[in-house]
């Protein structure tokens, strides 16, 4: 996998100046750089201040930027987002952290009814330039309350953008773009791949980012625009649409099966890079969608509808969806639930045969 070209490097930044980072360090670096550039940016959330976050994504920031810009909050997600909306109304650019995506639900009203609609209902008098960071996804034996993938809830809301990185390189560039965006962005971080890519084989040794090309991250400022997908593997046989952890699982399945698939990492779910998807499906004639989230009304349903609407006459086989099951995330049967290599491999076989 090749590192995508650096898009929109700031004038003067040295392109060659890179560092090895895991995804947490890349996120930390994005926050650090942005806080230094813009003193309107504040970081807030449960345990993000002195301690630096339960995953340490905000480590060192309070020491560097002070307690009024990086602070712990009371444990009330509704309060965290509501306060962030108010700070945004004043002119700040809050980057709240929700400790786990599974705990974002108390904040739904503030996100759905308020942040998402503020621009519209005030005709632009007020905006909500928030970037809500939150670790999501399973594969860490976290049980039902540390494993969910609720992105489909947010992509369904008009006025919210949803971004999901799959590498340290992308995480930093996308987070910077999200923070600079004047609309509310839900930034879900796939915690399973914080420390290294995951090939889907849970029973094999864990990898880290030190050997992965996208673990090499520019030290300075760069942004990856929202709404731009990344073709991580070019191919002719089938288009695979994925994001987050599943990008790596898919790449591995494709490699193991020796299939010439085109794998597209969506990076941003809303707004979606439909052009890249259309071009690819027109070329391959087949489309498979992979996500870890539950199936019914998942984001895959939207993707399938879009591809069907736009590429119907190019399709040579029904669109395949590979997803988590429509059950809560189990604890002990985690790997039976997870859409791993076998499930993806079966769907791949099926779509190529049809």
């Amino acid at each position, binding site marked *: 996998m090749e590192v995508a070209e650096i898009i929109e490097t700031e004038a003067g930044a040295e392109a060659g100046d890179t560092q090895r980072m895991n995804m947490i360090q890349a996120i930390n670096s994005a926050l650090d750089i942005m806080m230094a550039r813009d003193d309107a940016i504040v970081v807030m959330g*449960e345990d993000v201040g002195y*301690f630096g976050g339960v995953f340490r994504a905000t480590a060192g920031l309070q020491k560097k930027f002070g307690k009024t810009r990086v602070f712990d909050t009371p444990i009330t997600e509704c309060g965290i987002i509501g306060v962030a909306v108010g700070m945004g109304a004043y002119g700040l650019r809050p980057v709240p952290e929700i400790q786990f995506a599974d705990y974002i639900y108390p904040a739904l009203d503030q996100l759905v009814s308020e942040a998402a609609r503020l621009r519209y209902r005030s005709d632009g008098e007020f905006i909500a330039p928030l970037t809500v960071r939150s670790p999501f996804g399973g594969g860490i034996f976290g049980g039902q309350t540390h494993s969910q993938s609720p992105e489909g809830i947010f992509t369904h809301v008009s006025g919210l953008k949803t971004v999901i990185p799959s590498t340290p390189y992308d995480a930093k560039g996308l987070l910077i773009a999200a923070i600079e965006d004047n609309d509310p962005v839900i930034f879900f971080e796939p915690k399973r791949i914080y420390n290294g890519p995951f090939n889907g084989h849970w029973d094999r040794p864990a990898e880290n980012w030190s050997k992965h090309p996208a673990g090499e991250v520019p030290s300075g400022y760069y942004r990856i625009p929202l709404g731009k997908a990344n073709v991580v593997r070019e191919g002719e046989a089938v288009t695979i649409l994925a994001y987050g952890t599943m990008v790596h699982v898919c790449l591995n399945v494709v490699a193991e099966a020796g299939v010439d698939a085109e794998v597209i990492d969506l990076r941003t779910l809303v707004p979606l890079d439909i052009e890249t998807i259309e071009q690819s499906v027109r070329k391959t004639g087949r489309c498979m969608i992979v996500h870890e989230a539950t199936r019914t009304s998942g984001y895959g349903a939207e993707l399938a509808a879009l591809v069907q609407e736009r590429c119907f006459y190019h399709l040579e086989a029904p669109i395949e969806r590979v997803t988590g099951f429509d059950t809560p995330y189990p604890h002990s049967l985690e790997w*039976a639930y997870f859409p791993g290599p076998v499930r993806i491999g079966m769907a791949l076989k099926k779509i190529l045969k049809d």
Partner: protein
Amino acid sequence: MVGDRSNLKPLALHVPEPRFRPGDEVDFSAVDIPAAGAAPRPDTHAAPADFTDLSYSMVRVLDDAGQAVGPWNPRLSPDRLRRMLRHMALVRAFDERMFRAQRQGKTSFYMKSLGEEAVAVAAAYALQYDDMCFPSYRQQGLLIARDWSLVDMMNQIYSNRADRLQGKQLPIMYSVREAGFFSISGNLTTQYPQAVGWAMASASKGDTRIAATWCGEGSTAEGDFHSALTFATVYRAPVIFNVVNNQWAISSFSGFAGAEATTFAARAIGYGIAGLRVDGNDALAVYAATAWAAERARTNAGPTLIEHFTYRAEGHSTSDDPSAYRSAGEPNAWPLGDPIRRLKDHLIAIGEWDEERQAAMDREVAEEVKAAQKEAEKNGILGHGLHQPLDSLFDGVFEEMPWHLAEQRQMMIDEEQASGRPWARKG
């Protein structure tokens, strides 16, 4: 526009800061600890407005000499005290062993209640067995004090084949309806309004059972806490709210839940609810306050909020390292001491116990836990194969399985076959 503000000092944002951080010398002398026996005990039908001072002082029974003093002394028999002591020791031994099991890779997660044993155990003694508990994740003491099977609890912790929850829930998130113990949620404070609902239902049906619920001081910030108190006061629900103020919410000290400005018991005052602040490391005070609140609830006098002032002597969970955010000296310097030690000293002071019997009891509970662990591990430990039938994954989403789940279940079985390596199951 009124006034010229040009010579005002600029506004400043206050962000709370705990007194001690790693490396700091700990001195808790500024923590106000009222004398044991000093707090008055109002009639259980007194109006909340008549004893608001009890939200700021502290109900304490055991004094420094190990004597039980004052109007809150519940005068329990030595037998009862010894049983309570044993249950608290059993909780500690259980925690110790299960914490170690997680470290040995036998399960994914564990949470201790070290230093907080009295809060759960003494409350269980003051409630009726069929009163309904809506706990947070740190009240394993309720189950243990209700003599629930340790093996059963361990099976859940190991997600093994005897796990009553079929491996579906994170370790320690027990559910034991039979023992009046509501299914624990990982989402903070959701149990608070649920307890009120249960209590309202009990009242509306003319029952005699009451509900009790627990959350940490950090969790009082959640909206659910405030919704619960509003409903409880409006309908005068027979419910006891327990706030376990163990000073820390993961890395956030109680100031981030509002403790710099007032007490957690005082949250009751604005709602017109009875509020008590209690020495949470004093089993007799916890017992007395709970019994008082239970009588109040059971006689239609309404809800009570009890703040248990205590200290989380261990990390938040097996995923936490407290040395990164608080001084290592805090647990030992905690001015209210160790709840087990304090009850033991009391029993010795009244001539009903001695060091030899304590040592024998400690050995006994350690053996009991060890034997339970051995028994539970016969049913498997997490990660060593799949202990539940694969298709049980789909059980319990709904009462009856709709077509789409049946289809997905079939997909999973096909997947297992296609793998050429049927999911390893514990042989």
